[in-house]
């Protein structure tokens, strides 16, 4: 297993995942939250990050069966059904472009120096639905710094694996493969930007972008590129897959913004998976306090 747990917690102190998944049943049998807070049971193993939300987490089953991962098909159920063919070990990531230490790294090399932490983030899809997901991983900034980007590195470009044999969705031209995404350097270095290798304390399922994926919680979900094989430091803003597919609909920034509608639908509200009524969408997906300054002086209508 590639997920590393913090060393200060013994394996036997970690809540068993199956037990963890049944935690609500547990609450029910105990007869309520009051008793729980009185006993202070340790339900999560990892230290709580200040960036994590305490909102109710989306069910593991929903997170792992309702996915947009066109590499495996365009239906939400396709990735869970077809991602089994993806070979995630061995895996390597090529780092190139404007940096002092480029190279081709095995996944083990990539992960080695990083302590795995948990981040419970909201995820807002451009289609108008959202989830709350407990990711496991490490800050993107910590990874990027290792390669010592030079001053001409203005953007980071990410690329997903291209292999139509493993990824049946790539046999059709629904997008310009391989999937490409990008961030401005300061966005990439922001402490919220995260590389995930797991969720719910478990190895990242293939349909969720195993073995390593990006999570940028203040941007629409498609920015959070999955199954990354290449990271490039570049000087010019990289063209992205969705941006090339429909330039008027998917901008480079794609920050969650209730004031800027998608041409085909409103972005004012969202359906949190598991909830009946829609809820209002928040600016920068509720992370405005942390990230709004990145865009001060920018016209977010133009730079959607």
């Amino acid at each position, binding site marked *: 297993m590639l997920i590393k747990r913090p060393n200060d917690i013994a394996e036997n102190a970690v809540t068993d995942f199956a037990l963890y998944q049944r935690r609500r049943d547990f609450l029910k049998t105990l007869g309520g939250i009051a008793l729980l807070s009185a006993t202070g049971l340790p339900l999560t193993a990892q230290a709580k990050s200040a960036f994590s939300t305490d909102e109710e987490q989306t069910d593991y089953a929903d997170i792992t*069966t309702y996915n947009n991962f*066109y590499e495996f098909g365009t239906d939400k159920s396709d990735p869970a059904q077809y991602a089994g063919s993806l070979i995630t070990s061995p895996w390597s990531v090529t780092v190139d472009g404007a940096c002092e230490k480029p190279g081709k790294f095995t996944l083990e090399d990539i992960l080695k120096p990083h302590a795995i932490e948990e981040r419970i983030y909201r995820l807002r899809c451009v289609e108008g639905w959202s989830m709350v997901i407990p990711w496991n991983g490490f800050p993107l900034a910590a990874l990027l710094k290792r390669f010592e980007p030079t001053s001409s590195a203005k953007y980071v470009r990410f690329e997903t694996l291209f292999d139509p044999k493993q990824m049946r969705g790539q046999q059709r031209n629904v997008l310009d493969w391989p999937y490409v995404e990008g961030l401005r350097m300061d966005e990439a270095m922001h402490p919220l930007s995260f590389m995930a290798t797991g969720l719910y304390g478990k190895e990242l399922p293939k349909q969720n972008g195993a073995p390593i994926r990006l999570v940028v919680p203040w941007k629409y979900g498609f920015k959070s590129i999955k199954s990354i094989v290449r990271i490039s430091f570049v000087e010019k803003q990289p063209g992205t897959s969705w941006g090339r597919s429909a330039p008027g609909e998917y901008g480079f920034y794609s920050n969650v913004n209730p004031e800027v509608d998608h*041409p085909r639908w409103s972005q004012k509200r969202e*359906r949190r998976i598991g909830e009946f009524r*829609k809820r209002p969408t928040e600016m920068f997906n509720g992370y405005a306090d942390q990230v709004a300054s990145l865009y001060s002086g920018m016209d977010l209508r133009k730079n959607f």
Partner: protein
Amino acid sequence: MQIREPYFSKVFKPAVFVLALVPLAVLGWGVWQDTLGANPIEYITRSFGEWTLRFLLLTLLISTLRRATGWVQCLRMRRMLGLFAFFYGTLHLASYLWLDQFFDWGEIWFDILERPFITVGMLAFLLMTPLAVTSFKAAMRKLGKNWQRLHMLIYPLSMLAVLHFWWLAESKSRLAMPQLYAVLLAILLGERLYQAAKRKWLASNSSKTSASRPSVRMAAKRA
């Protein structure tokens, strides 16, 4: 081909009626058993929409089927299938108004005015309404010739319905299903154009040969 009476009226047609309700039952069961996935509301809205399209195509298929096979009886199912298209269309619209927008009329009005795929979808539904309202026999008699003219609205409204589906899917590169519906609709409408052209050609031929051909005139009337 012919199904003997009373089997057609008493068995076959009721069986088609029950079959047409199966999609609704399957969705209802899915809601009950919670098997519609993580986003059941989106699933329901989409399903109702797709079943509306399917019933529109089935309705259009009837007269083509009659011309292709000579099975006249099938015409007696056309109204029922058309009303099922309206039924699923109503459920599709209701799930949008209620489950999707929660009767936020400001948002709904904005959608209709500003989002082309909603505009054409709403228009298709509006055009379907007079057809459903005038589907019973008394209206047929009262409207006479105009009834047939009115019901030719199914051609443009079916095109609008496919366009609604197409524009919804376009930006997400999920055009496979809309393309399929567009091709099927094109075949059904193309067959009508072909028949009309054939009639025209026969009519001009028969006028040349002076002998009037009643069967051709009958066919022209049925158009």
